[in-house]
């Protein structure tokens, strides 16, 4: 806290743009970070309910889930896991660069993070296309070994709902990361490190969701 300036005015230094409702910049940053953590708590409950439903369905159809899981594209799925984990590494590097105040490096690292995110999206969409080719898309075109068809339909229902929701979240993250990259390059923000940290929190959350999805969808019977 800038105890040197306990006065009430909204603006302390020319460089700091504090929103009208706040007294000072640290308060604003604290609020923004807390806000993101609480939002992530909401997200945990959102995906938590989904994983819970998945668990119930898997207990209902253990063999069908194992059989259906074999039809997911392990190569692309694993590649995507690697891509996303790597993107998180660059996110962390960007956070460190922002902390050190190296704007250009921050911007470049954020761009790499975002490009990896886009790569993930591209691979995922390719995978969806291949799933369609393999008749694995419920409603549109689905056929499966009749012994397991009922459970496999449920499995692929969950597959598309979970990965779809994940992809939506990832796209939001991509927008966030690229916006901050632009801001960092233009040298606009005065609280760059904090902004990048907030984007990073979200990015890592999306990453963690995938780390749960990957074994649930791709590794059921591949021990």
């Amino acid at each position: 806290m800038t105890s040197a300036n306990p006065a009430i005015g909204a603006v302390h230094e020319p460089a700091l743009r504090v929103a009208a409702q706040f007294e000072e910049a640290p308060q604003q940053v604290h609020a923004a970070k807390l806000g993101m953590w609480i939002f992530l708590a909401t997200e945990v409950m959102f995906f938590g309910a989904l994983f819970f439903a998945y668990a119930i369905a898997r207990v209902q159809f253990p063999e069908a889930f194992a059989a259906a899981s074999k039809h997911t594209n392990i190569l692309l799925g694993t590649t995507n896991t690697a891509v996303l984990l790597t993107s998180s590494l660059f996110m962390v590097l960007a956070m460190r660069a922002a902390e050190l105040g190296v704007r250009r490096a921050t911007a470049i690292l954020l761009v790499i993070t975002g490009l990896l995110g886009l790569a993930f999206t591209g691979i995922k969409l390719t995978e969806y296309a291949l799933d369609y080719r393999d008749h694995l898309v419920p409603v549109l075109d689905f056929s499966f070994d009749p012994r397991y068809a009922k459970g496999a339909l449920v499995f692929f229902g969950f597959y598309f709902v979970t990965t779809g929701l994940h992809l939506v979240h990832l796209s939001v993250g991509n927008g966030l990361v690229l916006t901050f990259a632009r801001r960092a390059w233009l040298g606009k923000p005065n609280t760059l490190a904090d902004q990048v940290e907030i984007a990073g929190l979200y990015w890592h959350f999306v990453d963690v969701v995938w780390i749960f999805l990957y074994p649930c969808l791709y590794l059921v019977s591949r021990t």
Partner: protein
Amino acid sequence: MSSWTTGLAGDVPQGHAVRVETPSNYLNAKFTIGSWLATHDHKRIAILFAVSITAFFFIGGAAATMMRLDLATPAGDFVKAETYNKLFTMHGVIMVWFFLIPSIPATLGNFLVPLMIGARDLAFPRLNLTSWYLYVGGSIFTIAAMIAGGVDTGWTFYAPFSTMFSNTHVIYVLAGVFVVGFSSILTGLNIIVTVHTMRAPGMTWFRLPLFVWAQYATAAILVLATPVLAMTLVLVTVERLFGIGIFNPVLGGDPLLFQHLFWFYSHPAVYIMVLPAMGVVSELIAASAHNPVFGYKTMAFAIIAIAVLGFLVWGHHMFVSGQSMYAGVVFSFMSFLVAIPSAVKVFNWTATLWHGRITYTAPMLYALGFVGLFTVGGMTGLFLASLALDVHLTDTYFVVAHFHYIMVGGTVSAYLGGIHFWWPKITGRMYSDRWARFAAILLFVGFNFTFFPQYLLGIAGMPRRYHAYPPEFQTLNVLSSAGALILALGYLLPLLYLGWSLFRGARAPANPWDATGLEWQTSSPPPVHNFATPPVVTEPPYAYRMAALSRDVVDAREGTR
């Protein structure tokens, strides 16, 4: 009183000062429609919410009135069975998600939390406006469903009826509730962050008014429970649209999974509705008795206990659903546990009257009405928590009566009490206390007429959601329907005299009730940024009789040294 805050600007009118001209405030700062629809001011957004939920209250109330008319005869001659089912569905959906859940948090909470903690606004004003637009978005879907022909699933959307069997516009309503859920989440997130980061200097946690404690606990539930509902609705949609077996056993799903997910949200949702009401009532009783709240810290901890335990009792909606008997026993036990802090709160409100100087203004009558009706609702909740009794009483009118005592007798009474109490602060006008007291009494009488007979109907075995019923239930149903007409009249009255006060009411002083609390230390209505100069808090809450401080308040004060 004036020692409550220091550093206040001299231009804040004190006590009963008579003002000749209106100083600039949040209402007269700008008059354009755009200045309302694009406002970031928490006070204006609170009013946007208040107007919207009032509209929905009367739509939901109209549905209820038609249901009660239909139930006046055993055969249900007023509407068809289909229509009746749509009426109770719309009544439930609208009253739960478009009135009760946003009622206190999004209006009074939105307006008062920043004022009470000495902040200029909520932490995220734009998010706050987004929350209202999400509410409007959700309401558009819901109204679209009504216009398109309605929905007949009941507000509980039980699968597989909602996913495979209902031929009505389920998806619209699911979308509406999904969207309005995010409105709740954003309001909750905003309140949590605001209470954590925006408190004025000297406003320690144990100096927060109980209203703020209640809003805080409610916000935590909103943020943690609502996403589970959102996902449940997504899954219902997936099953309904794409035939993926999640809940319907024919497709390989599990119908009890739906109930677990739904009640995991919807039981805490009951506390979303009633905790803020408890907060309001604590303020009203303390101010009207001119007495510190008895056991302030106990009251704060009770709020937190209710919020936490409220997450662990959802299975008590499922005692006869086919869930494991042992699960039933555990959930029954937890339900008795959550009743304890609620009981303690009732005792402490009663004890707050002790050695007070009680004035019986309209807000106090509403608050006392709340305590009475909440007590009856809570006590009958114990019947339903008792496993063997629940087997007989669940899904009967006993349950209907029980939750209306809590949600209407409790929450709506407290909401109206709060509106009357803070009306001078919000609008800068006084209303006719005589009319307001009359309305409060009329509502209390009408309410008991409407809902007490329903307890007896439930005990006699009349199931809920029945369009027609055996003739022996008619006497009590007619009584209930007659009460509903009194109740409907009672709800229309405040519209009239409060509306009148907006134009003809006397100008309100800053602190008409002689109450403590930062919101009464600024002018009525408050300026755009709430305080001419930011307040510094030096006193414990409810410092009505400084000499009669209870021990824990003294502790709280010492803790800050």
